[in-house]
């Protein structure tokens, strides 16, 4: 079945360093979504990318959707301790009757050392 894979599984950085997580799908996606889950919290929606090659920025976060719409990345510039958490990408699964489900990657856990 459809799979969404993320690397790396863990990333430890010093505060101020950059961070990137990569997401790859086994199938072409109509869109890709990114979520952040703080330790002990729940996933919070960050952004959705729809177009091939799309790049979107949210302050220090840059999101990219690959040209083939099978991969995506999230880059954080100059990490801060508030960036700590697990970042998930998610793609829509099989559409049935107009309804779809989200297939999540396993996530990249980011630790930021002050």
């Amino acid at each position, binding site marked *: 079945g459809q799979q969404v894979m993320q690397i790396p599984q863990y990333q430890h950085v010093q505060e101020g360093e950059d961070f990137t997580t990569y997401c790859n799908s086994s199938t072409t996606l109509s869109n890709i979504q990114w979520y952040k889950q703080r330790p002990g919290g729940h996933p919070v929606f960050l952004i959705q990318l729809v177009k091939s090659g799309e790049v979107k920025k949210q302050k220090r976060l840059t999101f990219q959707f690959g040209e083939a719409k099978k991969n995506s990345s999230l880059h954080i510039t100059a990490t801060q301790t508030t960036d700590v958490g697990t970042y998930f990408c998610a793609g829509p699964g099989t559409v*049935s009757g107009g309804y779809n489900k989200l297939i999540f990657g396993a996530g990249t856990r980011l630790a930021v050392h002050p």
Partner: protein
Amino acid sequence: DAGVTQSPTHLIKTRGQQVTLRCSPKSGHDTVSWYQQALGQGPQFIFQYYEEEERQRGNFPDRFSGHQFPNYSSELNVNALLLGDSALYLCASSLVGTPGGVFFGQGTRLTVV
């Protein structure tokens, strides 16, 4: 404007028992999805409800069942609990036909002993 609310927040059950988890979607949302998140993993889709009907289902056994009420709130029922059912159960709400992400509740932490 209340977000997605789930109850209870924590629950401990014994193997073989049955459990019911509850979810109220964000105001204005009509679609509820349930996810299971094991420790260190991403959320796994269980099923989705819209207009009181199950619309999509993930790879979960029939022990997992659900319901949606006319006010859009939802319940997740799990029968014959197994140790492996221990996880964070997340409810996510959205408005059908609206692009963008879903809104998750804070989850119910289920421990089966």
